């Protein structure tokens, strides 16, 4: 069983290496193409700044890759971002927590929200998309209810280091994202946990019969999703200096787009963190590059839509030829 699985994985890895190579090539071409039109695009300053702006989506897209690799999906992450932003402000201002404690509490709440998703999915066996559509409304509603439309502002200066500061010229949150990419990448590629994620996505029944801890691993994937959404909320609040209950609205679709563009199959069983990273970078830089070239926002979203469909189309037709 394991032999079959690993050889499967090897051939799959080769194919998806191809997907990522294609995507990376497309990215490079797009970058230089756009760079030719505008000399402000390919500058260190701009690229670092784009990194700052894409961190929140990036942090969510990493665990989303795990979830989608298991054949699941989590559309509640945007709502968890909103809930966690409110929890941070509320626990600090209204409950009087010291800010460090409030931060920890926020991370706990985010993880708990993800865990709740995971429990409904693994214990009650409600399909992931249904569970998270329902909790999307629930979490967003809790954020609205707790905040009573109040924003919390005026955090101490040290807190803004996360979202606005630099370390040796690199935006702080970009370093956080780098670290997260490495951790998630290694976890998916090099650990038993990662292999179990693939096994669940390829064939959940087979994974269960191979005595893999299917439920526990799925639970962990959804909990991570909630945890990273709360981290994303911290970065966002620190960057924009205030909390709102509508924060993070629509993040779920942006994150899913990055994962899918990165070659992860929505049916589960295949995909890599590196692909997701390329996908996220591609979307961010395309938006930025087009804007700098003078393309308006509405036309930019259209281009993103076409790129999404076209890249998967190209990748799948190449793949079919090889198979």
């Amino acid at each position: 069983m394991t032999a079959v699985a690993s050889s499967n994985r090897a051939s799959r890895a080769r194919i998806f290496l191809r997907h990522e190579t294609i995507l990376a090539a497309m990215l490079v071409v797009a970058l230089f193409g756009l760079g030719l039109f505008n000399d402000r695009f390919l500058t260190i300053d701009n690229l670092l700044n784009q990194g700052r702006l894409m961190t929140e989506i990036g942090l969510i897209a990493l665990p989303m890759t795990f979830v989608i690799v298991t054949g699941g999906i989590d559309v509640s992450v945007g709502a968890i971002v909103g809930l966690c932003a409110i929890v941070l402000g509320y626990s600090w201002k209204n409950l009087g927590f010291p800010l460090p404690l409030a931060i920890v509490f926020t991370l706990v709440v985010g993880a708990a929200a993800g865990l709740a998703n995971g429990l409904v999915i693994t214990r009650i066996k409600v399909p992931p998309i249904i569970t998270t559509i329902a909790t999307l409304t629930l979490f967003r509603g809790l954020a609205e209810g707790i905040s009573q439309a109040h924003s919390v502002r005026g955090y101490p200066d040290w807190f803004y280091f996360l979202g606005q500061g630099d370390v040796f010229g690199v935006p702080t949150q970009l370093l956080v994202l780098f670290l997260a990419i490495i951790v998630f990448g290694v976890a998916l590629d090099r650990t038993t946990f990662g292999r179990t994620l693939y096994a669940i996505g390829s064939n959940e029944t087979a994974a269960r019969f191979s005595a893999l801890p299917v439920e526990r691993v799925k639970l962990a994937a959804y909990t991570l999703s909630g945890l990273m959404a709360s981290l994303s909320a911290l970065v966002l609040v620190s960057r924009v200096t205030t909390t709102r209950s509508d924060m993070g609205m629509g993040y779920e679709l942006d994150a899913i787009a990055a994962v899918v563009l990165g070659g992860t199959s929505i049916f589960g069983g295949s995909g890599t963190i590196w692909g997701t990273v390329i996908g996220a970078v591609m979307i961010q830089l395309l938006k930025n590059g087009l804007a700098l070239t003078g393309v308006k926002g509405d036309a930019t979203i259209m281009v993103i839509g076409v790129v999404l469909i076209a890249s998967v189309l190209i990748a799948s037709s190449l793949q079919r030829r090889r198979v």
Partner: protein
Amino acid sequence: MRSYLLTTAAAAALALAMNTGASAAGWDGADDLPTSPLACDASAPAAPAAKPYDGGKAVNAPDKAGKEISVVDVPKLIGIGYFNATSKGIADAAKDLGNVKVKTDGPTEAKIDEQIKFIDNYITSGVDGILFAANDPVAIAPVLKKALSKGIHVVGYDANSTPDAREWFVNQAEFNGIAKAMMDSMAKEAGEDAAFGIVTSTFTTPNQARWIAEMQAYGAKCHPKMKWLETVEAQEDNVLSFNQATTLLNKYGDKIKGLFGMTSVATPAGAEAVTKAGLCGKVAEVGLATPNAMKPYVHSGCVKSVVLWNPIDLGYAAMYVMRAVVDGKLKAGDASVDAGKLGKLNVVNGSEILLGAPYIYSKDNIDKFDF
């Protein structure tokens, strides 16, 4: 089934726990600002004590006085009639000025994170000036300050940021002025003892939250017998606004005499709800709206008065203020600014330029406007 009952019971418990004060009594706008209701009669408000300039300053902005500049306009969102009108005014002003290149670009939904990204991109692309209408006064501040620090001039209109994040703000009408116009119109149409409901976008939309708070303060002072029934949210969504307005009408039946629409989406939808329910003449619809959407109801007589400033003029003024800042004709401490065909506009509140008193559209003049 057991977990169904459990969850339902939990939801019901939550409902009971939260079943407190659905009426908006005590609404403070949720932004910790004081209210300042105007006098009940039409007397001009006492001139407020002059406030020193409290806006920010573009650092080392290149001197482009009289030269062509490129300006970008980033409204809260694109695709709604109101901001379509402001961007028309901005374009008109650019044409009259002759030395400004301007374009409007922004998110398709009123999302602050998206708006920040748009502004950030335009900072990088190197514009000379940014016009904005903020989705959130505080969240937008860091990116605007970044623009100022790069020598880009920043002028707001419609929805303000914190003062130090922009140079000037063109104020369409003061919050308490809008509140007075709305409450006085309602009292005139529905009676001094009328009970009314409100349909707004969301409780977190800054302008709407402020207006409602001011309406409450002014109502308590000048129309104490009017009864505030309930405020409901309807996003910037046509059909939801209609549904919510209908729900209020059905819930209160004969008791409800008036309905406020707080957005240019909610007001026509509310008027439609009153019309469909056959309550024209029995329930007064008063609200903020753009004329084209309200023409059918004003002509049918169902709606008597629509409160609004002219958004085309608002955009026009914002563009002129931007040009004046670049040309050095509007500096800290100035008392007025020249706004082309609009004449001279006054500086208030330190760093705001006031467009004027809110305008009330009625049957007699609504056809003169097309936006």
